[in-house]
């Protein structure tokens, strides 16, 4: 039943994709400039050309690895900081404004600051970290606040050990909040990480390839890389959603 529904959904989206591809093709035909816009045919042909090169996969691997590292650090740090902040008032007072500031600072500023402070190879790790940290932190805080106080009171009366309270009460309440933060955060981490690689000209990364395409006015490469980024973002979000849905169900 679920598979049937999924097939119906896919069939429904195909005409929409075809419609926008036609519009894209039409616009590129009207503009007739391969520097401003290339047609979908040229873009996908270039994507396939790139996909058979080692550089394409190495760049994806490097970017993906670093961004996922930054994302994972933020996921752990966000949950731990939120847990301490919700229990210890002084930590909350110190960290809530700091994380609000992190949330408000533009990615470009962080990238420039980070370029001055670290080795550029760590740039996307750092940028992904600061992008995802506020999302995870505030979502986890919200989750902790929504924990049923009556259940906690019950656990206290029965003198239930802390590890059991965490496993049976907090984890269950928090998992949808953390899952939602993670699925939102992975998309942000991906986009901001690649933007940072582009600004920082981190060699051997997706961002670097985008910058090379721009400076050499190779619009076909630029479009092909963009398509690759969008596809990877879509795949990652779905993988994470699948994993977290499994975790929540358990």
């Amino acid at each position, binding site marked *: 039943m679920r598979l049937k529904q999924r097939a119906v959904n896919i069939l429904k989206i195909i005409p929409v994709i075809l419609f926008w591809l036609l519009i894209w093709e039409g616009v590129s035909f009207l503009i007739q400039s391969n520097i401003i816009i290339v047609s979908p045919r040229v873009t996908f042909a270039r994507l396939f050309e790139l996909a058979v090169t080692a550089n394409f996969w190495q760049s994806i691997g490097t970017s993906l690895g670093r961004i996922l590292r930054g994302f994972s650090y933020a996921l752990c740090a966000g949950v731990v900081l939120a847990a301490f902040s919700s229990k210890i008032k002084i930590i909350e007072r110190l960290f809530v404004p700091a994380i609000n500031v992190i949330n408000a600072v533009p990615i470009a500023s962080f990238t420039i600051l980070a370029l001055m402070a670290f080795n550029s190879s760590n740039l996307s790790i750092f940028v992904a970290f600061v992008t995802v940290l506020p999302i995870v932190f505030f979502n986890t805080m919200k989750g902790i606040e929504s924990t049923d106080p009556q259940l906690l009171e019950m656990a206290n009366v029965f003198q239930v050990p802390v590890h059991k309270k965490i496993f*049976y009460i907090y984890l269950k309440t928090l998992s949808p909040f953390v899952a939602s933060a993670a699925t939102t955060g992975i998309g942000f981490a991906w986009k901001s990480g690649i933007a940072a690689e582009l600004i920082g000209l981190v060699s051997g990364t997706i961002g670097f390839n985008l910058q090379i395409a721009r400076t050499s006015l190779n619009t076909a490469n630029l479009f092909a890389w963009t398509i690759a980024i969008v596809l990877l973002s879509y795949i990652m979000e779905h993988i994470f959603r699948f994993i977290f849905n499994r975790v929540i169900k358990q």
Partner: protein
Amino acid sequence: MIKMKNIYKSFGELQVLRDISMDFNEGITCLMGQSGVGKTTLVNIVAGILSPDSGEIIGTEGKKISVVFQEDRLLEWETALTNVLFVNNNRERAVELLMQAGLSENLHKKTAELSGGMKRRVCLCRALIAEHDILILDEPFKGLDSEIKISIMQMVKNHAKGITICITHDQSESEFLGGEIKNI
């Protein structure tokens, strides 16, 4: 023995307990009274969940307390067995209690899927398995069919240890359980 002396408790403007003095001895004490007179507030003070505005309680310090709350307070996403094991890891005893409570076919069912009466029985098993010197039962037989109620009341009589305080509205329940009857 628990001694409560001149207990006062208010929630905002509403004074719930006013100069209550009461003793609870070893064995079962049934606490009766009309709705809203503060029975739950009184036992919550004994359990240490609430603090009195003034007054003194002697005999609860360092004691292990077990409670059947007025609300079920179950981990709805966990099975009946896990809910009981949550307060005590003795699996064998947990299974034994749940079976005695007529839940042998529902051990591994999530409590969210159980009926109100079944949930109440899980709460009772959870309270009975927890090590306790003081057992507080706030309307523990609420929602139970009359047939099963007798065996569950017998279970309480068999397993309750130390001081047991049972809130009930039903005279027949207090008669069955025996022990002292106190009115508030």
